[in-house]
């Protein structure tokens, strides 16, 4: 959706881009090729490891892609918001609950912004958070096992775009609604009203999710906001610790043809939120507990690896019109998109996507303006600061359609220009452009490992491009998107590598491999498997009937199942195969698939138990087999289930070898 919007909004300007080039000045690197020593710089010898793990949101595939940098190799895909047949995520009985929402089971998501957890303003390798835009949710993915461990739904939100950004110690993950909706202020109900009553009825919310040391997420409070579209965010750090910044567009509060109607105002706003103060209010019981039904789904290997769902009915809502000092508006030209805080925490750069400059606000000036009540007015009860009073500077000639900025920790900022397809490097202090490089084509986000933290690894930059054409073998109308790796270690940016990515990655983050590798889980201890239907040895393998439910307690080990011959199943039964992988060796998952089952296979990690539900529809003998090539005798890893007619009296029997 976001892509479409950008395209439809910005493509008309593409023609202007050519003229823009002439007047703005040509990019310094006129060619899209890479330098001659590039191959050497991205080469990772066989058996060697990449220096960084990159986490790329999958956009409309709802997943999280893991890439090695600098090689650009695709390492793995972590299923997060979408059912994934690769390992049965969202299909198996253990993981189905992860995709539960108040709208029921939602098997797909639109994943946007991965964000690594931080400690003291630095990435710490514990988790990656990721938001889902369409059905507002935030996920927490554990980097110990590269699995989604928790998903929380965001209530009173209608599109979770400005998410999931963390505060410097992962105190909070923030989330803001992209679409405002008519909300009754008494009970936050989405009202049945005319859409053109937008201005009087529509509201937005910004949510702060508290994260415990163990990772557990809960919505600590929401802030009721004017009915704008909230776009992106970043938390303050250093001197601006305690604040978060959210861009908004459509301060016009238009409800139709936004490409024209939401582009009228010369300035929209960045909402500066004092979350520390808001958290204090919340702690004092200020605001109101309001309806806000939402799901929290979590999976925990200490609890058997079975996902559980809990429903939370209420949420604390703070009203900035009544609780002073928690929200200020910073006027920012023209429909700002990204908002990025530099590593020192002093400057807030906005990507004014229709603006011809990059406005950079000064946090110190903002604080001073608040102190002096230097307001140019109020917007729906929220103080609006004076643009000129808070401005650090405007970066001139930043290319057309500046969207996102990341930092290298050496005093430079890098901004993607969507329309003019380039990355522009500028000096944060002087706000002067010092270098630019063409990218191929139309970059959205960009990423420097740790580039939104207080300590970036300013060696590489990845441009996340929206269009791939011409870069790889053409595949048909749809091509996945391209990423470009750029060397930023010297004065001049140098293109090193193109690599394709899956889905439409929006944002990405990266972390040095060393922070993750040592904590990586290799297998699950079978002794610690607390799954209620685990089978911890072949001797315990069995089949039990309970009415029309049949539970098969099955084990797998190279290269056989126990049992591998099952009889006494009847048409109309609900058969649950609870398959435990007895292996205790790294990298020996076993798969399990039954002919004609209406879900996906299972891929069971060593020491894990997963359950496949199967409802046989016709009599006969049905094979099952291992789907993951596990050993020289993998092909022999198979078995049969005999299915008898519904009213037959075939007794349950099973074989576990001779």
């Amino acid at each position: 959706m976001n892509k479409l919007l950008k395209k439809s909004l910005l493509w008309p300007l593409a023609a202007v881009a050519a003229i823009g080039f002439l007047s703005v000045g040509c990019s310094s690197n006129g060619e899209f090729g890479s330098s001659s020593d590039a191959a050497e710089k991205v080469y990772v010898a066989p058996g060697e490891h990449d220096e960084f793990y990159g986490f790329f949101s999958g956009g409309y595939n709802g997943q999280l892609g893991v890439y090695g940098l600098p090689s650009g190799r695709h390492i793995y895909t972590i299923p997060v918001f979408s059912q994934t047949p690769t390992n049965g995520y969202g299909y198996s009985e253990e993981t189905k609950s992860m995709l539960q929402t108040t709208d029921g089971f939602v098997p797909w998501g639109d994943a946007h912004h991965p964000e690594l957890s931080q400690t003291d303003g630095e990435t710490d390798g514990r988790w990656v958070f990721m938001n889902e835009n369409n059905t507002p949710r935030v996920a927490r993915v554990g980097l110990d096992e590269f699995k989604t461990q928790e998903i929380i739904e965001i209530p009173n939100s209608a599109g979770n775009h400005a998410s999931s950004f963390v505060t410097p110690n992962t105190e909070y993950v923030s989330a803001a609604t992209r679409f405002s909706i008519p909300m009754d202020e008494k009970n936050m109900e989405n009202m049945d009203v005319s859409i053109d009553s937008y201005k009087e009825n529509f509201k937005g919310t910004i949510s702060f999710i508290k994260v415990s040391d163990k990772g557990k997420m809960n919505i600590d409070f929401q802030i009721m906001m004017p009915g704008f579209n909230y776009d992106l965010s970043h938390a303050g750090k250093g001197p601006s610790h305690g604040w978060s910044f959210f861009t908004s567009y459509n301060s016009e509060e238009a409800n139709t043809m936004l490409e024209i109607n939401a582009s009228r105002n010369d300035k929209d706003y960045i909402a500066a939120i004092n979350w520390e103060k808001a958290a204090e209010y919340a702690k004092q019981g200020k605001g109101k507990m309001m309806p806000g039904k939402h799901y929290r789904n979590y999976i925990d290997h200490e609890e058997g690896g079975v996902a559980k769902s809990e429903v939370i009915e209420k949420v604390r809502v703070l009203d900035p019109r009544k609780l002073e000092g928690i929200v200020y508006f910073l006027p920012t030209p023209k429909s700002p998109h990204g908002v990025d805080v530099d590593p020192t925490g002093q400057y807030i750069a906005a990507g004014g996507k229709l603006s011809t400059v990059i406005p950079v606000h000064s946090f110190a000036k903002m604080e001073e303006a608040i102190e002096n009540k230097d307001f140019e007015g109020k917007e729906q009860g929220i103080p609006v600061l004076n643009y000129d009073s808070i401005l650090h500077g405007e970066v001139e000639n930043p290319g057309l359609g500046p969207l996102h900025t990341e930092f290298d920790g050496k005093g430079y900022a890098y901004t993607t220009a969507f329309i003019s397809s380039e990355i522009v490097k500028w000096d944060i202090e002087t706000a002067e452009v010092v270098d630019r490089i063409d990218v191929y084509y139309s970059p959205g986000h960009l990423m420097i490992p740790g580039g939104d933290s207080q300590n970036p690894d300013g060696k590489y930059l990845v441009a996340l491009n929206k269009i791939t054409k011409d870069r790889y073998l053409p595949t048909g109308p749809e091509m996945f998107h391209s990423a470009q790796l750029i060397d930023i270690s010297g004065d001049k940016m140098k293109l090193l590598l193109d690599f394709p990515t899956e889905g439409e990655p929006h944002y990405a983050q990266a972390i040095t491999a060393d922070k993750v590798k040592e904590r990586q889980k290799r297998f699950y201890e079978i002794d610690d498997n607390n799954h209620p239907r685990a089978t911890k040895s072949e001797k315990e393998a069995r089949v039990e009937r309970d009415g029309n439910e049949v539970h098969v307690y099955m084990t797998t080990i190279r290269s056989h199942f126990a049992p591998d011959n099952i009889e006494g199943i009847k048409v109309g039964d609900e058969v649950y195969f609870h398959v435990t992988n007895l292996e205790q060796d790294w990298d020996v998952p076993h798969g399990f698939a039954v002919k004609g089952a209406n879900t996906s296979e299972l891929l069971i990690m060593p020491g894990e138990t997963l359950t496949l539900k199967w409802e046989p529809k016709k009599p006969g003998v049905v094979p099952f087999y291992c789907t993951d090539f596990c050993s020289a005798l993998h092909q022999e890893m198979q078995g049969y289930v005999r299915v008898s007619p519904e009213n037959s009296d075939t007794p349950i029997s099973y074989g576990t070898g001779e």
Partner: protein
Amino acid sequence: MDTKEKIWMAIAALMLIGVYFVPIWSISMDAPQYPEGIGMNITVDNIQGKQKNDLKNINGLNHYIGMKEINPNSIPELKVMPYIFGFLIISGLVIAGVGNEKWILFWLGIFVLLAIAGLVDFYIWGYDYGHNLDSSAPIVVPGMTYQPPLIGSKQLLNINATSLPHIGFYISLLSMGIASTVWWKSKKD
């Protein structure tokens, strides 16, 4: 034997207590599919994987070629060995107390004989495991046996097995060395 020699003999006996806490022998296996290595250590009363699940995984691999499961509980030697070392420690202490150097020679003789018997037993154990294969095993390579080397390295299919003494063995050697020195010194006196 003078007091100093008695003390040294007592040390030679007492240091054998250390054998209870460290492996005596070690078998390591290298294979391309185990870049992190896999192997087992033999202690005075047990066989343990070098990593937590190594023994389980070795048994898992062995079942393809029809080797018996290595089950420490069913190996009688592991039940006897703690007593053998107990006997050596106590008899060594008695000799140190009595102070008769001829008894040291006797003690050393028994120790060496036991050590040789141990190695022979270990060889026979390895021979049995490597040769008595289940004929219904999935993989039967004609003429192939899987006896690990007594000492040194040997290629067994894709696995390179290395068998070497471990700290417990060297403690025993040191104990013998000290006892020999005591005997030599006291004989000259």
